[in-house]
């Protein structure tokens, strides 16, 4: 298991050091600094073995978190734990920076004592941690016996993510379908790979211990329901908004993963998503699709080398969705060679600039409706070099945001049942929003 956990600043100075196992000596702290943080070349692996001691590290801005072990630990678990550790710290004091860590070092030690025991990760749900470890110091001395046992039963219980007795005057929930669409396209316009990775984020303000059921236009369920002839579940049409899809009924989901509140065995047997949600904001599910993706933009590049000192670049972008919808925050990044001396750009829409420090022409458009087209052309002057190696031509990348789900996913219903309290599914106010963003959206040129 994890033998120790260290946090360093960018200079390699230790901010936090907590050792859980006897086989990890103080010199381990220095070994990581010397061999990884101060290493000359780029980090070649997130796992480093130095003198039979293994170091796992992740970086957040310029802070290094390193977990150390001498055993054959579960590597995936160690990384998951490090991410979780970052989340927990962020939810306590915001950004993970040197200053914040120094300002909260007592708190961090307390958290480390609680979420790792002898190197075994324990409860790491911020919700329940916050019931007894607070920024002002630990609660505990002034609690009644009932409160104390409530804390411990929540920390160790089956529903560790939600406490009892939550009350809201207005029961309300927000569902965000956030998708990032990834594309790699050849210069000829052939899709080399494309996938959507999506997340359903839920913000719930519900009283009591509500039982929820979530439904979407998953192909498997719809096919199933179609056979069975029971379709009245689809009645809640008020949730299905947003769409730009051309009347597509259902989508094929390649794979999905769920928050720990979802009953996985039920999903496995019936493919129904049922759960008791944590209070406040959390990520309900993640999914991935690869079939029938709506690619919101098409990029058509044309690069011509004119002699040894000049390049002509022309890039056309076409928007490919309903004309009534607007895409926002559009940015096209056209890489330029290292030996660029000057660039002249003309674009029909938006603003374009050559950024020498980034070796790219950045073309920004605030808004663009569907089924439109826009174009940029640039002349790039090059300094003559004697470098034999040809320019690698990195791909043209694109950023944007569109108000629909490129996978075609639609929320069909989210039902809330709370048997003990006096409110029904109809009393809950529900909001659904779809946002599609570009992930890695690249076209080779």
């Amino acid at each position, binding site marked *: 298991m994890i033998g120790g956990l260290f946090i360093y600043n960018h200079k390699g100075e230790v901010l936090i050091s907590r050792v859980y196992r006897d*086989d990890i000596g103080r010199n381990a702290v220095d070994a990581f600094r010397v061999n990884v943080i101060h290493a000359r070349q780029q980090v070649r692996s997130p796992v480093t073995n130095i003198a039979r001691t293994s170091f796992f590290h992740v970086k957040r801005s310029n802070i290094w978190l390193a977990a150390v072990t001498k055993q054959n630990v579960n590597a*995936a678990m160690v990384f998951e734990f490090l991410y979780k550790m970052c989340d927990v710290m962020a939810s306590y004091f915001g950004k993970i920076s040197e200053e914040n860590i120094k*300002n909260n070092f007592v708190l961090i030690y307390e958290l480390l004592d609680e979420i790792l025991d*002898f190197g075994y990760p324990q409860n790491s749900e911020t919700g329940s941690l916050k019931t007894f470890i607070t920024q002002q110091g630990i609660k*505990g001395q002034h609690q009644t016996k009932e409160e104390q046992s409530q804390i*411990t039963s929540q920390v160790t219980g089956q529903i560790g993510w939600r406490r009892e007795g939550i009350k809201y005057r207005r029961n309300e929930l927000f569902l965000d379908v956030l998708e990032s669409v990834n594309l790699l396209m050849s210069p000829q316009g052939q899709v080399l790979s494309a996938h959507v990775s999506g997340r359903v984020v839920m913000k719930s303000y519900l009283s009591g211990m509500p039982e929820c059921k979530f439904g979407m236009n998953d192909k498997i369920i719809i096919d199933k329901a179609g056979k069975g002839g029971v379709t009245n579940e689809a009645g809640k049409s008020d949730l299905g908004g947003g769409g730009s899809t051309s009347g597509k009924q259902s989508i094929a989901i*390649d*794979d999905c993963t769920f928050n*720990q509140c979802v009953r996985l065995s039920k999903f496995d047997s019936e493919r129904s998503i049922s759960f008791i949600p944590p209070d406040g904001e959390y990520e309900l599910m993640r999914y991935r699709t690869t079939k029938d993706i709506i690619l919101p933009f098409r990029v058509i590049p044309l690069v011509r080398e004119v002699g040894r000192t000049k390049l002509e670049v022309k890039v056309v972008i076409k928007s490919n969705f309903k004309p009534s919808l607007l895409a926002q925050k559009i940015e096209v990044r056209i890489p330029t060679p290292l030996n660029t001396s000057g660039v002249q750009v003309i674009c029909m829409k938006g603003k374009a600039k050559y950024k020498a420090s980034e070796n790219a022409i950045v073309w920004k458009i605030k808004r663009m409706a569907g089924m439109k087209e826009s174009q940029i052309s640039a002349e790039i002057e090059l300094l003559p070099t004697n470098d*034999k190696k040809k320019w690698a031509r990195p791909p043209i990348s694109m950023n944007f945001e569109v108000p629909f789900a490129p996978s075609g996913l639609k929320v069909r219903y989210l039902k809330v049942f709370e048997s003990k309290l006096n409110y029904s599914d109809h009393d809950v106010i529900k909001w659904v929003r779809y946002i599609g963003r570009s992930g890695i959206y690249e076209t080779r040129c």
Partner: protein
Amino acid sequence: MEWANQLCENRQFGSKMTDSKYFTTTKKGEIFELKAELNSDKKEKKKEAVKKVIASMTVGKDVSALFPDVVNCMQTDNLELKKLVYLYLMNYAKSQPDMAIMAVNTFVKDCEDANPLIRALAVRTMGCIRVDKITEYLCEPLRKCLKDEDPYVRKTAAVCVAKLHDINAQLVEDQGFLDTLKDLISDSNPMVVANAVAALSEIAESHPNSNLLDLNPQSINKLLTALNECTEWGQIFILDCLANYTPRDDRESQSICERVTPRLSHANSAVVLSAVKVLMKFMEMLPKDLDYYSTLLKKLAPPLVTLLSAEPELQYVALRNINLIVQKRPEILKHEMKVFFVKYNDPIYVKLEKLDIMIRLASQANIAQVLAELKEYATEVDVDFVRKAVRAIGRCAIKVEQSAERCVSTLLDLIQTKVNYVVQEAIVVIKDIFRKYPNKYESVIATLCENLDSLDEPEARAAMIWIVGEYAERIDNADELLESFLEGFHDESTQVQLQLLTAIVKLFLKKPTETQELVQQVLSLATQDSDNPDLRDRGYIYWRLLSTDPVAAKEVVLAEKPLISEETDLIEPTLLEELICHIGTLASVYHKPPSAFVEGSRGVMHKRLPARTGSGESTESPDVGTAAGGSAPEAAPSIIPSQGDLLGDLLNLDMAPPTTSGPPPPTTGMQMGGMDLLGGGLDSLLGGDIGGSPAMGAGFGAAPAVMPASLNAPVGGGLGDLFDLGGVGMPMGAYIPPKIVWLPAMKAKGLEISGTFARRAGVIQMELILTNKAMSVMTDFAIQFNRNSFGLAPAGPLQVLTPLGPNQTIEVSLPLSTVGPVMKMDPLNNLQVAVKNNIDVFYFSCQYPISMLFVEDGKMERQVFLATWKDIPNDNESQFQIKDCHLNSDAASSKLQGSNIFTIAKRTVEGQDMLYMSIKLSNGIWVLAELRVQAGNPNYTISLKCRAPEVSQCVFQCYEAVLKN
């Protein structure tokens, strides 16, 4: 520490003072100031002071001098202060064990506090204080906490048992904590169950043979139930524990798989990977024609692909594991090639791993896409990545024959870029392509030759020289090209020198007239001016070949080379199986068995995939660990003699920590390299058999197939035993096991065979009794052996001259030779025999005592013994116990001598006789032994050292058999 000195502004949280100020003071006399503050009456001031102490501790300052003052602050109601003091205690208690005792009372008191959080905190912290004296006081509170009414306390106490076990294992056993811990597996609270499982798994790891984690269908069922309810971390502990279980049959295996599959949808990648591990392992037991089997295969692909959208570090772990999974079961991901395409912004470690998997998945169906991608990668920036991409193109050519032509033309395009490292890498892979498709792409040689001057890496130079030598007859100026390399011969690396030597000899054999001078030049450079023995030897061999028999030289040097295989970098199957059992862990990231990077006894245990068992039969192995571990008992610590005699100092040498290994691990040197364990073992079994194989003459230095390094087994052993066969007679008295029935009449249509093996006067004999229990006469007997570990084969025909009538019995003795074909068997001394008669052919297998392979000249010189003992790595040593043997050491020695186990020296230390013995096997392997006999103690201890540790178990069995008969 610079930053501790900085003055930080307290600008956060409005007026609230923040912690960073504690890092700020480093004036002289700081310790005194702190001391005063710690003893202050004001609570707030105390707390501030402790915070300062902790801050200093973090940056590595020694604040241990404040120990008594800090411990004094422990008696407080303030939980925050208490936690800080505990943190301090955990750090310094070990350096001040006497003072740490001062804290005990508070701990014991806190363990009875009304607040469960405080009870848990106390028991958690107490376990972290690694002071022996404290542990005694820990037992009582721990016992109470294990039975506490609050689950939070119980789950903390469960982990505390593992902590205590790490400090004092004996204490934990004596106090019966292990049983209490086992009970917690049935606890009502899932988190308690998960922590108990984690603690037990860890303790079980250091007791490989104990049956601590008594996994049976009932306990498995409990674990599977808890799996649905506990935290993500708990699920990981439980799944990792499940993976150690071996289901009794395919039905149980399937039902566990069914209950584990839902975990594949968990958001935590570690849960997913651990579930994949369980499924991959249990799938082995399912029949392949089962519908469920193919369903399961289909279910595995999507979650594995999803792992690739995780954060880069996790992607890396996932990719390393997918690499193993693809090798084990390529069918799972064969349609998912695209997801492994490299993204421009991927970190380099992700890129390299993706590339590796792309090559493994390349097939005729997707090769066009793969090639297009690889060509793209070859223009990237990172040198390592580009090299690997170029190499990958070559591997595609070798793997998918239809694509070879396109690959070659792609490589030629890349050579045209003139980027130095791309060209060199391309030439190295083109050489491999030539070996796979000889006489097909020679047209490209001209292009390659143009780049001769730009090659500066040994591997590329060697590859180019090989190409020139191999195709010397088609390259007009081959002699000039090779001559140009010859100028700086002594500055070249060995690889290039060897290659150049071979290439010029090839050239000479192909064009003898004009190159005589050149070949003489290179031979003299290699033999007279070089210090490198390899080069000299190769030079002499060529020289002698050329001068004595040029025809033979041609046959050797220009022999047809075996084609190289498609997959040259697959992980060796046994290692792969072991790594599959470690999916998700560091071992799977490093692609090395845990023993290669974990110290001590932990993780030395080799895991294996279960074998398929039908529901009818059931195996009696509840735990893979024990099944794989064999029956080797734990070793007793070696006694290190103090006198400085000959054998004494050999023992002193490198035996410092007594090796307490479970099963005799295969040679560690090889494990570290991740090399072919089985092959290596076999190689060493082959002993002195190093022949002039044509491959050697062909001198294909950079052949991609990894040849297991021959473990320098004594050369000439192979010859030695040939002479032995007719050899020096020894007095009778060798141990002969009693005859047993090998082939019952039921199975062989009435023919019953029983027999034994014996070594008489240096000849190995198989003594058989054939009984005809059928009604008809049997004639035409013949016998044959399958290939076996020591090359045993019948030296003559089976002498049954008269027909065997009904109810007749005949005794035959069949002389055996040890020059037959060799194949490693399991167990090592297994022999598969076929006997034929006029009715049918019958097969049976039997085990021979390895003692019949002990040759008569197995007595080693004392000096040689000493040197050899030192030379064999300690990992190759195995220890065994021989129980209930009532011989004294002299009697034992003479008895063993009868079976060619020779005593070389005897020493007596403190009433214990130590006998040092040597044994030589018919294939030249030496086994060295140390037998310890204590007067009045019927249990002997024997340590065996051998370069081929696989034989140790068999040799031990012989000792036991000889001594007890």
